[in-house]
């Protein structure tokens, strides 16, 4: 049969090529080494933000670390998320930090990394407050203007929209926030947000480098989130 030699040949070819694949159609990986990483920065605390004018946040730190590994630097472009993603689609930016999650509707037009952090939204009880046995009709504090109220309502609880849920007896917030505030999580998670970075579409060599930089960072991200949540 012709199959066996063909397969063997294919394997040999793969092994030979494996060393430096995948390559970028637009040579992004080579170019970021020359001109720096062109990064869009959209306000999304604590993932990406500006503190005293300087870029800050979890994603900013991850990208600065990547730049150090590649022996280059990050050129930050502050702006709106939508404009950044449009620029990314046309490869005018190399990466965007803006608190994106894996179910962004932009996923068809830009490249997404795998989740570097999985954020759980949970109910929390303040110290000294016993978790209720049933959530039906219970008032739960949520951050006003967030999507959390909807999730709380879906569990038959009554959302109480406040400026900051911190210090309220019963709250719904991200697990890392609950930990920072000293609230005890209870019940099933309400929702899960898989946080990702967006990269220029089709630049697969570049994407692989970003992925390598993100791999195994979950624990560190969790710790940094805790530090950022404390005032």
């Amino acid at each position: 049969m012709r199959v066996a030699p063909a397969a063997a040949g294919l394997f040999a070819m793969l092994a030979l090529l494996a060393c430096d694949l995948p390559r970028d159609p637009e040579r992004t990986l080579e170019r970021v080494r020359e001109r720096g990483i062109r990064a869009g920065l959209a306000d999304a605390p604590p993932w990406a933000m500006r503190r005293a004018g300087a870029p800050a946040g979890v994603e900013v730190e991850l990208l600065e670390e990547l730049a150090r590994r590649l022996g280059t630097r990050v050129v930050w472009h502050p702006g709106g998320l939508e404009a950044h993603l449009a620029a990314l689609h046309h490869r005018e930016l190399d990466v965007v930090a803006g608190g994106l999650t894996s179910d962004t509707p932009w996923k068809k037009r830009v490249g997404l990394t795998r989740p570097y952090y999985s954020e759980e939204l949970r109910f929390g009880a303040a110290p000294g407050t016993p978790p209720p046995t049933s959530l039906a009709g219970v008032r739960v504090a949520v951050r006003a203007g967030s999507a959390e109220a909807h999730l709380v309502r879906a569990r038959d609880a009554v959302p109480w929209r406040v400026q900051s849920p911190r210090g309220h007896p019963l709250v719904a917030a991200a697990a890392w926030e609950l930990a920072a505030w000293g609230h005890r999580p209870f019940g099933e998670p309400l929702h899960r947000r898989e946080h990702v970075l967006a990269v220029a579409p089709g630049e697969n060599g570049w994407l692989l480098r970003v992925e390598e930089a993100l791999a195994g960072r979950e624990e560190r991200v969790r710790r940094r989130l805790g530090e950022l949540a404390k005032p």
Partner: protein
Amino acid sequence: MRVQGPYRLPEDKERLRRRAARLEWISLGWMASIVVVVGLAMGSSQAMKAAWVEDLLSLVPPVAFLVASRFESRPPSERFPYGYRRAKGISFLIAAVALLVFGALLLADSLVALARGEHPTVGAIDVAGRTIWMGWLMAGALLYSVVPPMVLGRRKLLLASRLHDKTLHADASMNKADWLTGVAGIGGILGIGLGWWWADAVAAGIISLDILRDGVVNVRRVVEDLMDRRPQTVDGDEPHPVATRLRLELETLPWVRRAEVRLREDGQVLIGEAFLVVGDPGADLPARLARAGELARGVDWRVHEVVVTVVPDLPPPA
């Protein structure tokens, strides 16, 4: 209404049929595992999506074969006096139309991707604690999808011509051509790896053309079958020699001056009419005609029922 007699395959053919059914069950198992493996590794490659759709569609002919086998063997009834042998043709028509439609959709998809200059993004995956490019996994899955259909296709092709089963034949030739899909898919993935963004859409285009071709060929074939085309060889466009053999056999009868037959394929069996010009009808004509009918059935295992009539004259042979 007079119901047709039940048809039973000769013993040796029945054994072959059971072997074909077993092969189709094995095909189903293999192809389902391929659909799962390729589906899990799919990612955002257009070529891989096309390959996956083809794998998925290649489940249909075995299912059609196995489902239709159940119906086919039912004896003819008052309601269906010709039996259930068309079941296979009907299920295969559905499969062929599905191939046609999906082939066309995928082709349009790839052309749009090409025209828009869409750069496929293929990320990373962790294997044994190391971050590797997802493309390797995708190519591996496609490699897995190449071998089983080729092996199965060869074995089914052999059975198909011995059983004269067109569903099986179409299924087998689709399987045999499946390696093209896998190789094109792997080419697309490697192309992405080499930084040729267009390679993926081109590979997808090749695969969808292959699906489309399968669809066109099979729709034509099955429509011709359902249109009662003359009996043909299973793998070619030639008229099947059985019609001539049947005519010559009938003409060996001493009381027959000339004979002509009209046959059609009904599933894998043949039914039709024989027209005889006789010299001296004699007193026992009904018995003679019955014997002629028996003679006709003995010519080939596929001949099931030939209605014999006497005509005053036949047009001269063409």
